[in-house]
């Protein structure tokens, strides 16, 4: 098995060990054989642009390993992050299906493997296999649910401390699994920069820095590199009013 950037490249979807855990990839054998024929596997470094907002749709990217951020430009002209894509997601789906330009720029947050499928091949694939169609529908449903959650949690919050608290609490839903954990502490892995966090919640890097420093000063959060630890969850929850 080939390796790149310290992870194994998954060349054959039929032999993928995590296929059944992925929203899109858990397909019938027949569909997987077809997928194997139409996909092109590539490995990307951190910061690679898989597609650009406004670009005509070329196809979709199935994110096999790694994570990517989906960002766009707000009506005020500011760059904002819509969400973070996890392994198993199909990126560029809306554009490929509707034939409209990509709605967001997709940039890898870490070394990643993505399988590219050209638009016409993907549309035929969808039309010929009912299980693919169902998976696409589920992926779009999942994306819509994420978008609604963003609208709920961030759009209705008026203060930056509330938005940041909400974001941290959302990350806490998938905490780091450490061998030794202190009671009442929740460790998180945060690979976003403060600039990216600012783009996520619609504010400036300086404001994020100031608010986070305040959280740390009050003993609510501890930050050590990419590991953040929630020390006082109740205090963060008390900030959330909407």
């Amino acid at each position, binding site marked *: 098995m080939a390796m790149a950037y310290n992870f194994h490249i998954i060349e054959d979807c039929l032999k993928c060990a995590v296929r059944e855990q992925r929203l899109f990839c858990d397909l019938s054998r027949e569909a997987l054989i077809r997928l194997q024929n139409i996909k092109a596997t590539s490995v990307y470094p951190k910061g690679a642009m898989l597609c650009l907002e406004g670009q005509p749709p070329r196809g979709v990217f199935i994110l096999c390993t790694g994570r990517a951020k989906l960002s*766009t*430009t*707000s*009506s*005020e002209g*500011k760059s*904002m992050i*819509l969400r973070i894509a996890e392994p198993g997601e199909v990126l560029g*789906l*809306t554009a490929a*299906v*509707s034939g*409209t330009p990509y*709605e*967001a720029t997709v940039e890898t947050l870490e070394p990643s493997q993505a399988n590219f499928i050209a638009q016409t091949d993907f*549309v035929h694939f*969808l*039309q*010929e*296999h*009912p299980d*693919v*169609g*169902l998976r*696409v*529908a*589920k992926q*779009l*449903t999942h*994306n*819509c*649910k994420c*978008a*609604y959650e*963003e*609208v*709920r949690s*961030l*759009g*209705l*919050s*008026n203060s930056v401390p509330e938005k940041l608290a909400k974001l941290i609490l959302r990350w806490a839903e998938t905490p780091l699994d450490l061998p030794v954990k202190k009671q009442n502490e929740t460790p998180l892995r945060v690979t976003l920069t403060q600039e990216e966090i600012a783009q996520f919640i*619609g504010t400036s890097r300086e404001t994020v820095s100031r608010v986070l420093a305040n959280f740390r000063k009050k003993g609510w959060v501890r930050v050590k590199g990419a590991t953040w630890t929630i020390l006082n969850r109740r205090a963060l929850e008390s900030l959330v009013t*909407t």
Partner: protein
Amino acid sequence: MNTPPLQSEATNELYEMLSPQLRGELARFEQVRIVPAGTHLISCGVPPEHLVIVNAGKVEITLNCSSRHAASLGYSGAGKVFGMRALVSGELPEVDVTCMESCSITTVPRDVFLALLKNNPQAYFAVAKVLSSDLQIADRILRGNTRRGTLRPRPRPAKTV
């Protein structure tokens, strides 16, 4: 008020992607009716029994944010299809779709539509297009409104009994 004729030839975001044969299959089970203002076409948390197509009239889509507040995602009208996401995924709707005025709608029973999809997998492309359009609405809201905090919480619409 006279009941409008069957809408199998009408343009809506789903039917324009289906073949005449599939439209004809659905037409056998369609029901067209006029509903008054205030009617919930889709209710948050309630599994839909039908796919609902708006033929005429204006509807509002609201996203429920808490037990007491909802946020408007905007308005829609003729040609829009509702209930697709919940029918296909099996998940409960997260939005309310409410008629702002008297609306003409076409409904297709859930089981009929799902059977059509099962027997005609090419129809999933049409489904995907409808779902993509829903997602584009949500993304537009995120881009345009949320960062300024202009979504205004308001009381949730009362459920119809």
